[in-house]
């Protein structure tokens, strides 16, 4: 092996090292993107589910126009959760601008004070066919997430 050949192999080795370093960093970026994409998919799923229930008049049937506290929270919970895939876990909260209510309709101190994993997505839909609008917060997580 002459002198020129040695430099060639050293340069080639350096290129392989650089290439390997670059490629090894790709999966992290890919995972991050996929995680965000999945979270966004869950958000969209929650939003479109609630929007469909609103358009179909389901939310209207079980909410009290003048006093949201007197709404049928049991039925609301059933109708909101039933269109979701069985592989998705959901928690519901209702926010009227000042008070936050749990899934059962009872007033809670603050919204979002639940155990959430890093893959929990929050979907929000504001239901406005009431004297005072309310925002339905859906905390969604995949069982196998």
């Amino acid at each position, binding site marked *: 092996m002459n002198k*020129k*050949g040695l430099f*060639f192999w050293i*340069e*080639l080795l350096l*290129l392989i090292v*650089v*290439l390997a370093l*670059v*490629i090894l960093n*790709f999966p992290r*970026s*890919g995972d*991050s*993107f996929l995680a*965000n*994409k999945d979270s*966004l998919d869950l*958000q*969209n799923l929650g*939003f479109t589910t609630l*929007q469909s229930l*609103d358009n179909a008049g389901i939310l209207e049937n079980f909410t009290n*126009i*003048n006093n949201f506290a007197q709404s049928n929270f049991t039925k609301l919970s059933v109708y909101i959760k039933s269109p979701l895939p069985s592989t998705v876990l959901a928690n519901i909260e209702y*926010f*009227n*601008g*000042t008070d936050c209510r749990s899934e059962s309709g009872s007033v809670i101190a603050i919204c979002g004070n639940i155990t959430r994993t890093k893959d929990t997505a929050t979907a*929000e*839909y*504001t*239901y*406005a*066919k*009431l*004297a*005072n*609008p309310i*925002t339905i917060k859906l905390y969604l997580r995949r069982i196998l997430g």
Partner: protein
Amino acid sequence: MTAKGQFYIIASVFVLISLTVLFVFTLFVDFGTFTLPTQSTDFDNLQTAIMQRNNWLSGYWFDLDWKTKTTVEISLGYANPVEIDADITTGCDSARVFQRTGNSLTEIASDVTAIGCNVTFNAPSEGIYDIFWNGTNMGKSNSDGNEITPASKTIAQVPQEGICSHFAQILPKKNIAFTCSAAEVGDAYNYSISFRSPDFTYYGSII
């Protein structure tokens, strides 16, 4: 291998690396609003809420200038003309009667009595009737002895725009600068919105 050949190999490797990097970045990297529009979902929600509220108002309230309504349910067995004590305190002359069918309102010719400001009209059928008036209700009930007792009676005030104050409680917590004002336009509200998030901005009106 000659120096020229070595140069071509290295150049080819660099070109290959460049293409690979370009390809992978195109495939995986977040290009902001083009691939993951996380912030605009809040704007979608705002826009949808405004449109849903205005659609609802058009079927719930015939004109936002009329401030109060009494909703009564008239059952079978009534005799025309029916007389309803709608609990009108002020704004007697502005009273108007609408028959409700689902989410649509159909106006019916009506009159008010000289005593007690009760509303009289010929009901085409049993069902729900909304009596709107541009005045107040203070729990007054002036019976003249001729009114019927409806199956149900509820009184409601005109819904406020509601959207601006509601979203003002939500969006700033998400690092979104939000200002909003609303103006009555017939049976709907026209909202002037300023919405500025890190990757989405909107200035304009939504009705």
